[in-house]
């Protein structure tokens, strides 16, 4: 690459001392220019622009934006609209996790990627949207036009289940395992790309790598997040968020799956490191299938509610594949006055957050080894982060 990626990168300086990473210093990335892109636009038009502005997690970004605008206007969409947004967001999560488990992950470990499964999942997910809402008609504050096709949706879900079971889980539902031994036995057979990846990651040198003392994000008081994003010092908050008690938290698949018995057992045995973060993605795919199956019957044909031309501010939230995402908006007469985002990346790459805590103390013989570790940790936490790594010696 030449020059700096326009999407923004995080600069990480690793300090090596006596064969270990003694310190990690992060420089936050610039905030995205969403304010400049959206200011003055009608709320409906602004929300419809969002899928074009984001290359990853665009459904989650759109869902968070819809929630924020609806809260600002005091509008409650019909249940079917929320069900549609949930189905789309879960499907996007399946696609993103499947890509990580079949492409990026194997490549990072020198394994052969399973391109065909990655492509098949992407094709299948893309086919979902017109079965519920043609031409992105669902993207409207208050709810858009839904025209679900139940028979085709049932077939689609069965097709996805089959694809996941054969392409990713090698014909066993990993989420049903109880003991780590079952997971190891499954991984050792190496009959799918995620199995091969987990087999490599379950080895002692990798399993616990990247674990740290950072807490996992559970309930987060929305009033505190709203005050942070809506306050005068919002940029500092959005670049280095903490809880009201000053804690850094990890958000993402591991945080969401932290109560799964396999994750708890793995945490006890090896720590919540690389293996746990990878396993959490696989477990979440199974959970997403269940979530989609439960939400599909809630879909009914219809449109949303009409919007008042009001003002106010609102906070929207969505669980994107890579973690919890917040959008905050202030509207004036139905137009965007202020628009702010808090991405999961800023939690995980907080200067005292999971990326930093997981790397500190890791054994690294030289700068090359330290950089490689940082890239693995970055990929495990947030695959869409551009990292610029510099290594210095204490």
């Amino acid at each position: 690459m030449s020059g700096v990626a326009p999407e923004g990168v995080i600069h990480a300086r690793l300090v090596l001392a006596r064969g270990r990473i003694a310190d990690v210093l992060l420089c936050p990335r610039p905030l995205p220019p969403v304010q400049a892109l959206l200011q003055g636009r009608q709320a409906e038009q602004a929300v419809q622009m969002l899928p074009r502005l984001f290359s990853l997690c665009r459904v989650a970004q759109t869902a968070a934006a819809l929630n924020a605008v609806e809260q600002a206007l005091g509008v409650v969409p019909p249940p079917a609209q929320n069900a549609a947004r949930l189905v789309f967001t879960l499907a996007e999560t399946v696609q993103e996790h499947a890509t990580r488990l079949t492409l990026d992950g194997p490549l990072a470990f020198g394994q052969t990627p399973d391109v065909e499964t990655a492509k098949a999942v992407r094709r299948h997910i893309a086919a979902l949207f017109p079965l519920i809402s043609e031409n992105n008609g669902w993207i409207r504050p208050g709810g858009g036009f839904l025209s679900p096709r139940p028979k085709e949706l049932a077939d689609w879900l069965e097709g996805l289940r089959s694809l996941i079971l054969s392409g990713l889980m090698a014909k066993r539902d990993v989420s049903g395992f109880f003991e780590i031994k079952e997971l190891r036995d499954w991984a050792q057979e190496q009959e799918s790309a995620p199995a091969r990846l987990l087999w490599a990651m379950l080895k002692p040198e990798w399993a616990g790598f990247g674990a740290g003392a950072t807490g996992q994000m559970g309930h987060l008081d929305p009033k505190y997040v709203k005050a942070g994003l809506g306050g005068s010092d919002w940029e500092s908050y959005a670049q280095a968020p903490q809880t009201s008690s000053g804690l850094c938290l990890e958000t993402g698949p591991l945080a969401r799956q932290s109560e799964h018995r396999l994750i708890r057992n793995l945490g006890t045995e090896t720590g919540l490191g690389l293996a746990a973060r990878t396993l959490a993605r696989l477990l979440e795919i199974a959970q997403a299938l269940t979530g989609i199956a439960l939400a599909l019957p809630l879909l009914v044909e219809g449109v949303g509610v009409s919007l008042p031309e009001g003002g106010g501010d609102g906070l929207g939230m969505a669980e994107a594949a890579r973690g919890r995402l917040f959008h905050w908006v202030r509207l004036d007469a139905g137009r965007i006055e202020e628009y702010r985002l808090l991405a999961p990346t800023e939690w995980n790459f907080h200067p005292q957050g999971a990326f930093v805590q997981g790397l500190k103390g890791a054994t690294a013989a030289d700068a090359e080894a330290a950089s490689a570790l940082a890239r693995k940790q970055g990929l495990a936490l947030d695959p869409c982060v551009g990292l610029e790594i510099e290594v210095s010696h204490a």
Partner: protein
Amino acid sequence: MCLAIPSEVISIENGMATVECFGITRQASLLLMEGEVTVGDYVLIQAGGFVAEVVDRQVALETQAAMAEALAQQAS
């Protein structure tokens, strides 16, 4: 932030595309899109450095212009 700034494909070799956006060139893998991308296309690059989508030329140019204006406005 995963902003979707479309990049133009300026060359393709051995399954890798060299793409350009705002004067910056970089490499991206065509593993997900092999056979579906040609030189001159505008594409979106996904996490991990994979080309994930071909974008309509007109939409790409409009998005690039809006992003350039917004980035300049933010920097000023």
